[in-house]
């Protein structure tokens, strides 16, 4: 199966609901490892994306992600612009396409991880969203090489992202605000990485 604009919206709306329901968990994590505003920042970005999606009713997959990207780019914190640029790669890769396959998602995910690393300067192991983004891209690429369709590929991406996020628990932050708190952040999962895992999980389930 492939992803059309309607399924892409469904995927995003499912993520949106998850954020509305569970944003406080993310805030709690950021309270330990950062400045405690990530949940609220993410919720704010998601609401802005929602307004754009409702307003525009996009009819290609790229346009769905363009609306999502704009919502994040219109939000503060470090996560707003970085996630905005992450989703922007999805918008670019799927730009003008009424339907996309796993290959397009793999390309988008890889480009997104690269962009976030380039702009934010974090590498795998720095206890950031990158720790979920990079494994997700790798998993998608492997899935595509193995001939998987969209749902299977996203399931693989979700598992990889969740594992990556989980692995941040033992890490010491080197980038972002969490870097100021140093060892205090050890022992909790990075909330940005967790949000990436949620994103792919919703894709595997809803898309």
């Amino acid at each position: 199966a492939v992803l059309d604009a309607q399924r892409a919206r469904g995927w995003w709306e499912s993520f949106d609901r998850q954020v509305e329901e569970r944003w406080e968990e993310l805030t709690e994590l950021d309270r330990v490892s950062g400045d405690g505003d990530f949940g609220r920042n993410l919720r704010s970005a998601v609401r802005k994306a929602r307004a754009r999606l409702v307003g525009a009713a996009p009819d290609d997959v790229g346009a769905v992600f363009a609306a999502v990207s704009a919502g994040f780019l219109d939000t503060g914190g470090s996560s707003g612009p970085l996630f905005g640029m992450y989703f922007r790669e999805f918008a670019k890769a799927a730009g003008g396409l009424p339907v996309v396959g796993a290959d397009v998602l793999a390309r988008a995910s890889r480009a997104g991880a690269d962009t976030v690393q380039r702009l934010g300067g974090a590498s795998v192991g720095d206890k950031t969203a990158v720790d979920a983004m990079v494994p997700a891209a790798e998993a998608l690429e492997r899935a595509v090489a193995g001939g998987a369709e969209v749902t299977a590929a996203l399931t693989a991406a979700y598992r990889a992202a969740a594992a990556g996020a989980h692995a941040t628990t033992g890490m010491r932050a080197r980038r972002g605000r969490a870097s100021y708190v140093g060892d205090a952040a050890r022992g909790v999962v990075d909330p940005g990485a967790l949000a990436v895992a949620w994103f792919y999980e919703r894709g595997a389930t809803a898309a």
Partner: protein
Amino acid sequence: RRQFLNDPDDLVAEALEGFELAHPHLVRWNRDPSYVVRAQAPVRPKAALVSGGGSGHEPLHVGFVGTGMLDAAVPGQVFASPTALQVAAATRAVDTGAGVVHVVKNYTGDVLNFRIAAEIAADEGVRVQQVLVDDDLATDPQLTGNPDGPGRRGTAAVVVVEKVCGAAAEAGADVVEVAQLGRRVAGSARTLAVALQASTSPGERRPSFDLGPQEVEYGVGIHGERGVGRRGFATAAELVPQLVHPVVEALGLRRGDAVLAVVNGLGSTSGLELSLVFREVTALLGGAGITTARSLVGSYVTALDMTGCSVTLVKVDDDLVRLWDAPARTAALSW
């Protein structure tokens, strides 16, 4: 300390609305995404100048939108970066095809959002150049010993960069020339600041930190944060050298050099005091054989209601002085 305020969350938007109403002939405020542009779009193609950053530093940056300075200013919430989308929209709004120069104070959020906005605009065919302003000597890695940190903060030197680049752009310099000029100015500017009282965030009653009766906060930035250390309160004659001497040294200024000196109030420092501080500054420079070729004395880059002042020195040559002297017509600087 209390403020004239309704809902603190609405402060920036309400203030921008008031600012536009007060200067209808000079500026236009685009509400969403929020940015301020000149009332009259440039009549001819020229390199455009965009700056921005958190609010709470007024008149910076909106007060510098107008002929001879900025084409657009992009205000964030108080002490928070504007979003990449705001910056990208402002960039788009002022590009005439001749490209856009972003003047960015060195703060993580500002740098990230302006960089992203530049990429977005570049994708749409806008030529964007960035000038990073990082003049705050208090946060120099050489002094703080933290080479991995974000580096020197951007503070009052940004006004000089905006004025000089604005004049060059108005005179027809292209986007690369304007940016190179801006980098040169930023590179020859250093600032040090001292606070006598912390600022109070909108809606709060207490200043963001407390100082003992005989303490001053040395090396503060413009976000109400603590400085690099406490020093003793003293007369202006004793405090001002602590700002001037390190700056002179960092810039390697020598007898015969000429500078532009900015004595900048951080919010609540009276005009009498700023003039008095400027007198001390010129005396110290004069004693070292350094000419104060030009100056700017006033509250231009503030930290809400912080009591304190910064001293910025910019090494200048005749070219820079000419550009500084060129006409400007903005809400906060006009000659």
